[in-house]
């Protein structure tokens, strides 16, 4: 692989049942690049959790994935309500998801912790009333 590959996705915020289309597509693309199943699994789960968050909380957003020889970077951008207290949001079990989302099996307060668990680096920039940008990176072992 020379240079870098980039993928861009619009995440539709209106349809919860279609959430995950971008992650499933990225999984396919990474498989075609010949990356290991474990790396693909980590990237696609982290990205799916981020997608779900954007659909639940922010009315959708965009997902950009940059693949280089060294790492995979995922940038999730939304213009939702923002996160008031990021440290609190990062705690396992803390959730502000509504009941209808919980009945679907989400909203257990595991999304952000899973994103951190499965990536080597995660950064959240958020401003209340403006939106949130989550950047995650997964290193590709030599």
């Amino acid at each position, binding site marked *: 692989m020379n240079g870098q590959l980039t993928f861009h996705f619009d995440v539709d915020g209106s349809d919860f*049942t279609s*959430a*995950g289309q971008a*992650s*499933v597509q990225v*999984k396919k693309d990474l498989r075609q690049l010949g990356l290991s*199943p*474990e790396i693909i*699994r980590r990237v*696609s*789960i982290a990205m*799916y*959790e981020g997608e*779900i968050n954007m659909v639940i909380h922010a009315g959708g957003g965009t997902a950009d994935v940059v693949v280089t020889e060294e790492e995979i970077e995922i940038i999730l951008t939304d213009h939702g309500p923002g996160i008031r207290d990021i440290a609190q949001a990062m705690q396992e079990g803390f959730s502000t998801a509504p009941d209808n989302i919980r009945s*679907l*099996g*989400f909203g*257990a307060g*595991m*999304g952000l*912790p*899973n994103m951190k*668990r499965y990536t080597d680096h995660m950064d959240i920039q958020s401003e209340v009333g403006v939106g949130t940008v989550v950047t995650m990176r997964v290193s590709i072992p030599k």
Partner: protein
Amino acid sequence: MTVAGLLQHEAFSPVCLPDGEREICGVYIGDLLSWVMGRASAGNAWITIMSNINIVAVASLADTACILLAEGVTLSEEIVATANAKGINILASTLSAYELAVCLSRLL
């Protein structure tokens, strides 16, 4: 044991088996989808009572060998079609999650 191999046992009935030769390595039980994505291992048979479309995406991303629907849970035709298209194996059973786990511990 393969996913298709489970069908030798009367407890399991097929819902869709696009990748029936997939080998099962271990079992995970859970209905909170993020919990499943955080804790299930690739190749696990995943026992759940959840029946919404998101289970197909979770099984695909977590790379489980199959979904085992417990307690007689059924899926809509649309979900089954999506699972077939995405290569996700699904079996169903009238047994509870606990009974399925006991059964699998003997079989695997």
